[in-house]
């Protein structure tokens, strides 16, 4: 508690952990490249330097606010130093901006532009490093790395993995993997959080956009798209709309215009997931087998469990993810010559997630030896396609998804946020869809603003102990407690990214903003607007179980060899 003077104005502070937070609260957005409020303070970039009344300079991210402090954030001396820091960073940076995937969204580029830097007096003397394209999800180009360490901390502090680390020293310092192995040969789970936090183009999404355009351009191919729940509240960000605005209809319109033959909604297969997973849950409960049941929608989590906690692999649901189920159903539908009309079908999924690019390759998700999802692209890649095609999303009228796979329940929509899968399961187990009951479920603790949510709900004659966790580092805490016998649960929902898919590694990143709450609220808003909020009341789901899935539900909706995740 106290008051400090910033640039001559008095600013009160309460429990801000550092001077930087007070400055930003006062509406002055001084630049940083290595400061991330959710992680430990690193203090490496020195851009947040401020000056006190005696001319002493210090990094505001690493200074505790004190009552009576007087600081200046933008003196001529500070301006000069900040400019030099950016010039030095640019001096050892591969500046192929025009061909960089990050161009336009690059924090370094943004700062250079804002500080009016028009020349770089330094030459790059560093060795050229090969580009690591081994991962289906991300591309690492260390020639664009500025050693801010954001990816290192995202990987170890948020995700509890520590795949990326600073190696070597001084001018040779390099963010790398153990023994400089290609990232695909490490325990990387492909979550893409390193890419979310990378301020430059050093870590970018492994783009599959060209393959999609190829398929669209081929007249013998029917291109069928499926759109994941979290995509609809993120794509608008890139077109200047309000954070978390629901733009599903506009996305569908844009995709139809771009040449996708059919556009379907993954909320439908999210409903199928709940049908299958709720049944699996009840079976395991009655047999008291492999409990707690752990969710299987998130491929990064599935790989994490496989690599790090093999003892819990049998607890993971055998359900395919919504992406896996949707593609299996679509491919099955077009196996019927009457539906395929002699055309080959290419299934393109649009996901908030980089790990989905890995998941589609898992043989456990294949149906009859065939890969169901042909191409997985992220929301960010979809945004690129829309821009490339020359469309302004905000100008498009909303359109509905196509039939017969274009409708999901509200329970399917909230899959995109942490707690959504659990809430949808609870709705499935609920005896009716009364508003009161739906509200009670929402208030049971499943939407609490915590990374680890623990709560108990009554079902028939017993209490169900449930844990909802997001962020793999938090998942590690839960699993370690479980292993030590400190906690007991019946159901654990795990999402690899903090907050769930809305903050997935493939979502657009907005400079200086964390739209987690806005996107989550956006999904709940859409859910509130749905007439059908329980998966079992979705007429398309009922039709599928009466028709195609009658004796194929297990084959199409579950994984078959649980041991393979590479």
């Amino acid at each position: 508690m106290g008051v400090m003077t910033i640039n001559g104005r008095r600013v009160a502070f309460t429990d801000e952990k550092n001077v930087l937070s007070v400055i930003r609260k006062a509406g002055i957005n001084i630049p940083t490249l290595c400061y991330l409020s959710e992680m430990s303070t690193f203090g490496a970039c020195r851009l947040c330097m401020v000056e006190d009344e005696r001319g002493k300079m210090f990094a505001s991210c690493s200074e505790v606010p004190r009552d009576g402090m007087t600081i200046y954030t933008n003196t001529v001396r500070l301006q000069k130093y900040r400019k030099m820091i950016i010039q030095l960073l640019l001096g050892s940076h591969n500046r192929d901006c025009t061909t960089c995937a990050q161009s336009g969204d690059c924090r370094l580029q943004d700062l250079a532009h804002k500080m009016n830097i028009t020349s770089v007096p330094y030459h790059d003397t560093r060795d050229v490093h090969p580009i690591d394209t081994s991962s289906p999800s991300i591309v690492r180009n260390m020639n664009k790395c500025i050693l801010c360490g954001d990816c290192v901390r995202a990987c170890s502090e948020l995700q509890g993995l520590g795949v990326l680390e600073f190696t070597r020293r001084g001018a040779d310092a390099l963010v790398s993997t153990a023994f400089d192995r290609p990232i695909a040969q490490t325990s990387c789970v492909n979550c893409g959080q390193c890419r979310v936090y990378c301020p430059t183009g050093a870590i970018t999404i492994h783009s599959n956009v060209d393959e999609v355009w190829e398929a669209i351009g081929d007249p013998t191919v029917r291109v069928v798209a499926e759109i994941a729940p979290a995509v609809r509240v993120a794509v608008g960000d890139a077109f200047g709309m309000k954070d978390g605005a629901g733009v599903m209809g506009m996305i569908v319109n844009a995709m139809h215009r771009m040449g996708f033959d059919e556009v379907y909604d993954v909320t439908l297969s999210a409903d199928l997931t709940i049908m299958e997973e709720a049944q699996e849950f009840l079976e395991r409960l009655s047999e008291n087998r492999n409990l707690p049941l752990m969710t299987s929608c998130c491929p990064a989590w599935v790989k994490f469990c496989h690599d790090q906690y093999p003892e819990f692999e049998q607890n993971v649901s055998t359900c395919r993810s919504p992406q896996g189920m949707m593609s299996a159903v679509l491919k099955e539908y077009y196996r019927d010559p009457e539906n395929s009309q002699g055309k080959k079908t290419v299934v393109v999924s649009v996901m908030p997630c980089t790990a989905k690019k890995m998941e589609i390759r898992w043989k456990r998700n294949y149906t009859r030896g065939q890969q169901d999802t042909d191409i997985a692209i992220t929301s960010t890649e979809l945004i690129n396609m829309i821009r490339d095609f020359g469309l302004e999303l905000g100008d498009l009228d909303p359109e509905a998804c196509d039939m017969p796979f274009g409708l999901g329940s509200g329970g399917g929509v909230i899959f995109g946020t942490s707690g959504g899968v659990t809430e949808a399961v609870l709705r499935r187990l609920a005896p009716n869809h009364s508003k009161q009951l739906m509200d009670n479920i929402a208030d049971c603790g499943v939407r609490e603003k915590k990374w680890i949510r623990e709560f108990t709900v009554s079902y028939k004659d017993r209490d169900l102990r449930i844990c909802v966790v997001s962020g793999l580092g938090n998942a590690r805490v839960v699993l370690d407690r479980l292993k030590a016998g400190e906690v007991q649960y019946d159901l654990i929902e795990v999402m690899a990214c903090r907050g769930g898919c809305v903050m997935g590694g493939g979502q657009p990143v907005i400079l200086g903003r964390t739209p987690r709450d806005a996107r989550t609220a956006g999904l709940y808003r859409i859910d509130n607007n749905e007439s059908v909020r329980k998966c079992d009341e979705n007429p398309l789901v009922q039709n599928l179980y009466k028709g195609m899935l009658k004796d194929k539900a297990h084959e199409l909706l579950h994984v078959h060899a649980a041991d393979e995740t590479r």
Partner: protein
Amino acid sequence: MLEQSCYDLADRCIAKHGAKPSSLIPVMEDIQDELRYLPGELLSYVAEKIGVSEAEAYGVATFYENFSFEPKGKFEIKCCDGTACHVKKGIAVIEALQKELGLGKDKHTTDDMLFTLETVSCLGACGLAPTMMVNGKVHPRMTPDSAVALVRELRGEES
């Protein structure tokens, strides 16, 4: 593949310092003292046992010049190129040894695993410049000829 005895050594070192993350450097040092290098597989093994990520252990090992993933020769020669040794023509000594041993910028150990030649920044014996150190023993006021003679003498002792 490393011999089982190496893993036993790692287990002993971990037992001595405790299976905790802060034991990383002492354990690495003990292993390197014993084997005269730090085998990569062993580093991964230690990292898992003491609960640090493999990448973090690799980061520490590559940060310190002292740790080597490559087996070192029987005689570890450290030639000083610090300020004092440099002005007293330490480079000439290093070049003469490189020529004699067939080593260079990227090759530090002879094929017969007898000699490893490293350039270091200071041995703390500037008054004796140019200096070199062989397995911990300092040799003062070297010339290209005396350095080569010393190496030949050591080689003679071996054969």
